[in-house]
């Protein structure tokens, strides 16, 4: 089953299990590939494309591509860094990301990637679409303005019968994240906390415990994202 294969990332010799996803194998070898939608041991979504790498010369999402013997991965090249920066910029202009008023600021993966790629201002025009805030459930605010459609909450937050508390509605430009009010009414504090923690942006916030972490103590206040490879997937 777990056949060991050798592959390279930017020329660095690495080892991984055959079929292991490139992002996970890279992290095991101490190489950071940025992710927003990916979480280890979860069925890959491949929706954000921030992990775009060159695999054997072709652009691939490292979170959906498995490693094989002799795979050649390019990760840290000026071209790929610019592509990733452009993806971060597109995510910023697509939603309404007002960092100064967001509780997740400092703990936000999207913002941290903005810092990492030194995004000073997006090169694309802002969309400023009108989206709603869903605040009718007892434990959670769902701030749709900030959702980047990573699908982490849809895949992870389920009730005891395995039903998803969050779901997508619509397609393309009309796509939005929604919360099942009945299931959300029975959400435990623990699950509500988990939902907020796995959200890479500030779309899911817990009620009644706002702004507990002071500025200066947040995850990305002093160290750029990717410095701590053990905890990159929350």
């Amino acid at each position: 089953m777990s056949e060991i294969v050798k592959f390279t990332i930017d020329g660095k010799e690495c080892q991984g299990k055959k079929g292991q996803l490139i992002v996970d194998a890279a992290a095991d070898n101490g190489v950071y590939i940025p992710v927003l939608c990916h979480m280890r041991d979860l069925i890959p979504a491949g929706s954000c494309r921030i992990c775009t790498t060159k695999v054997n010369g072709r652009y691939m999402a490292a979170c959906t591509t498995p490693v094989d013997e002799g795979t050649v991965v390019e990760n840290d090249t000026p071209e790929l860094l610019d592509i990733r920066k452009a993806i971060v910029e597109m995510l910023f202009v697509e939603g309404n990301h007002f960092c100064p008023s967001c509780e997740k600021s400092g703990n936000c993966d999207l913002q941290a990637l903005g810092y990492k790629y030194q995004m000073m201002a997006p090169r694309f025009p802002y969309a400023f679409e009108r989206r709603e805030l869903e605040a009718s459930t007892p434990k959670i605010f769902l701030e749709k303005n900030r959702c980047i459609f990573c699908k982490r909450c849809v895949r992870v937050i389920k009730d005891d019968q395995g039903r998803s508390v969050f779901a997508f509605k619509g397609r393309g430009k009309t796509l939005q994240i929604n919360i099942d009010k009945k299931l959300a009414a029975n959400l435990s504090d623990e699950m509500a906390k988990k939902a907020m923690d796995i959200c890479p942006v500030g779309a899911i916030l817990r009620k009644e415990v706002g702004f507990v972490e002071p500025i200066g103590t947040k995850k990305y206040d002093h160290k750029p994202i990717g410095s701590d490879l053990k905890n990159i997937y929350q």
Partner: protein
Amino acid sequence: MSKPIIATASLAGCFGCHMSILDIDDRILQLIELVEFNKSPIDDIKTFTKQCDIGIIEGGCCNSENVEVLKEFRKHCKILISLGECAIMGGLPAMRNGIPVKECLEEAYLNGPTVGLNAEKVMPNDAELPMILDKVYPLHEIVKIDYYLPGCPPRADLIWAAVVALVTGDELNIPYELVKFD
């Protein structure tokens, strides 16, 4: 050689970025050795009296007056800097951007919970008032902007480092902690 000339303005901003400029503390004494100020709230010069080297603008464009001032700055300044989140992305004023202007004005002057003093239910309509724009625009969507300093407000050390690097021509090395979007 004469000193480089700086002009500053606050458009649809809260003056917090200008406060952050003052947060350079005693380095302001070094600053006046390095540069001369022209149109700016710092010296209260209201109109441009000469061509400037650096224009620093806080706040986005929410009305016709903001656009006019911004275009004046572009004409009079060699280098234009967007200072802070409002200048870069509209900031908090841009929270109205998804909502039609009519709806915003009606909420502010007719239907909102704090309109009690406006007993006659009048919307501001004086011809002297600048026209409000359909949405709040980031500066770079209206004129060319040369540099961006993010933050709400941008840290004083960031502003200082950027201005000194521009004036002296030295390389700009900014520590990670100085560039924040909040």
